């Protein structure tokens, strides 16, 4: 135990001297979490809509008014000489609404005039959503202006949106962003610290000392897990301030899983450092595996079941998959151990697995005492 502590103190002294690293460890999570949490948003607002009203009657203007009043669309002025295709191709509008001649007359006769909406579908997700908004607006226009015969309503629906009644996106991405930050930086620090030993050659001293592999690894990891806990406090505070985090009523789940997660991250980073033996390569490895793969496959952006099965299996090896789920369970859903037990066990297994790989890597070089 004393040996582990001594190793951790040595690491701390090394860490304290590196100003850039300290900055990276403390400042970067805050900046990146803020950016990641608030730039990722799928909610559409103020989409510029170019309007071609070839009818120009009171009813067609009322129809336009329906679109103008919605939050999703913003009617932008158009150049009279410009065709809708040109307006869309040059980003002056994301969608173009074309109202045909005789719109009012046909409506009054019950002739179902067809209004066309051209949508720039280069962002296919947004385009689908816009098409749906337009159809909803269309129905509401029909209802409000009593242009269609009234439908007998058999069934009505009352909705309840659990856990996030305002349908706020930052809540969702803010919790995921914390998970990413708590993986990236501890893993990076662990990788750097280990790779440095190889680069400077001091690893030989570790081999030759009376430290066992387990003690060496634990001593190194201890400091970076501690830094990770500082990061947790920082990120959680930021979350409370900006992303509407709520204190979980049973914080023990979050604490235990954070510890396991940090350990998994640090061990993973150390494994990268051990196997590459150079700081640059270790940084790239961490960036690739810990950050990029976690960003894509952990369910931070899109649900895991949307990922094609050929690469979906990868996500079960990523600690972030489980941790992000636990964070959302604790902070947003406020459910306790019964729901989060499986992910916590998975995290523990992953942490232990990475630890074990480290021990194997170290053992190979260690002298038998």
């Amino acid at each position, binding site marked *: 135990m004393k040996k582990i502590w001594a190793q951790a103190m040595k690491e701390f002294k090394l860490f304290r001297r590196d100003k*850039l690293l300290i900055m*990276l460890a403390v400042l970067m999570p805050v900046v990146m979490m803020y*950016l*990641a949490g*608030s*730039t*990722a*948003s*799928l*909610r559409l*607002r103020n989409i510029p809509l170019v309007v071609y009203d070839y009818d120009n009657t009171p009813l067609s203007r009322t129809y336009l008014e329906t679109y103008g009043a919605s939050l999703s669309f913003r009617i932008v002025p158009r150049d009279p000489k410009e065709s809708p*295709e040109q307006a869309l191709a*040059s*980003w*002056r509008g994301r969608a173009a609404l074309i109202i045909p001649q005789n719109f009012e007359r046909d*409506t009054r006769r*019950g002739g*179902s005039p067809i209004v*066309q909406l*051209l*949508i720039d*579908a*280069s962002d*296919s*997700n947004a385009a689908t959503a*816009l*098409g*749906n908004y*337009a*159809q909803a607006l*269309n*129905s509401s226009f029909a209802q409000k202006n009593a242009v*269609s015969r009234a439908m*007998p*309503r*058999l*069934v009505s*629906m009352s*909705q*309840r*949106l*659990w856990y*996030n009644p305002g*349908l706020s*996106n930052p*809540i*969702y991405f803010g919790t995921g962003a914390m998970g990413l930050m708590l993986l990236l930086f501890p893993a990076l620090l662990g990788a750097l610290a280990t790779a440095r030993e190889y680069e400077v050659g001091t690893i030989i001293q570790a081999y030759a000392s009376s430290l066992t592999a387990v003690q060496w690894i634990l001593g190194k990891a201890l400091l970076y897990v501690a830094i990770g806990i500082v990061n947790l406090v920082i990120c959680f505070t930021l979350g409370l301030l900006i992303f509407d985090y709520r204190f979980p009523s049973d914080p023990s789940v979050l604490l235990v899983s954070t510890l396991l997660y940090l350990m998994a991250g640090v061990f993973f980073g150390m494994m990268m450092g051990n196997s590459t033996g150079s*700081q*640059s390569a270790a*940084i*790239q490895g961490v960036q690739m595996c810990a950050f990029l793969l976690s960003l*894509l496959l952990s369910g931070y952006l899109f*649900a895991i*079941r949307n*990922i*094609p099965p050929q*690469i979906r299996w990868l996500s079960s090896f990523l600690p972030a998959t489980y941790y992000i789920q636990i964070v959302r369970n604790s902070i*947003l859903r406020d*459910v306790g151990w019964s*729901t989060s037990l499986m992910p916590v066990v998975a995290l523990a297994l992953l942490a232990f697995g990475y630890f074990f790989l480290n021990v194997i890597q170290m053992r190979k070089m260690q002298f038998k005492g």
Partner: protein
Amino acid sequence: MPPAIRRYLALATKEVQQLRRNRVLLIQLLLPPTVVLIIFGFALNPKVRDLRLGIVDESLTAQSRNFVDALTENVNFEVTRRFLNSKQAEDAMKNLDLDLFVVIPADFAVTLGRAETANVQVVIDAVDANTAQIAQGYMRSSLDDYNATGGASSNVAFRARRTLARSTHPSAPPGAPDVYPAYLYNPGLVTAWYYVSGLMSVIMFINASLVASALAVKEKETGTIEQLLMTPAQTGEMLLAKTSPVFVLMMVVLFAALGAATLVFGLPVRGALWLFTVAGAFAALAGIGIGVMIATVSRSQQQAQLLTFFVNPPLTMLSGATSPIENMPAIFQKLSYIDPLRYMVTIVRGVTLKNAPWEALWPNLAALAGFAIVLFAISAVRFRKI
């Protein structure tokens, strides 16, 4: 041959030879960008499908079963379980076994029999706001269908007017105006096109800055920078010689990415390829400029790489490659104007998907060129000082 060009060629040859010997770096440079791009294209998929629907049928009558049938005709719902009371469904939702559930009250059939409006409750797990919103839409659309057909079991002619997977809202009632959305540029609504077209230049840019900083700082680290400074070559020539192999490599990376995108995802190239090339060249220059700038302030390769960590993620997030700039908070929208990648992403999408007119593209190209020149000039000035 003028001496300046001779000196440049000599230095460039040295750089190329050094780069060629560094097989690991070459593989690192050329392989991952394409692989990453392909993973990105496959993994990023915001479509919502197979929502797990739970049903609490307290009525247990022919009418309620008919209603459930109408709801579940929507291909996006997958009925996982039926519950006897809403408490069980709530527990299942808390255990993350359900995405949403419907509660049909005990007096459902009675109310319908009296020709009144029956009320059902829908509970949605809204932690993922986007999914919840879409689920809400699907639900409403199924319900409207049910109401429109007067509760009769499926009326195929009415349903055939829309594709279930795409539309979440019902067609307009008969007689009322109807709106027909037409999807330009990507009529098949392939999600990968959006991400792939955005990210190919981002990946190239990040690589350019990483490699340029690594190469520039390497001379400093190994101490060979003094020897370089003592040669008759000017700093400008030195910098050009150092960066031109990287530049060529980056253009290869960019075109490999474009090739992968067209082959794997069928991304169309509708506009002028030369515009893509020119813009790519400017973006690569800007990336190299940032890389060299980072190198001039850092003492070791490790420091340089850590510093790129500070710079690259914000540039990526603000570029609009993964989430539309219009959706960001106003302050980030303004900040995105000082992100060279924003212009590059716009041009790539303009050229590949939209065939955008020159009038719309040139301001972006001009801005990108401005950034490339300024960044490269600053890095040249700073490089002289080492």
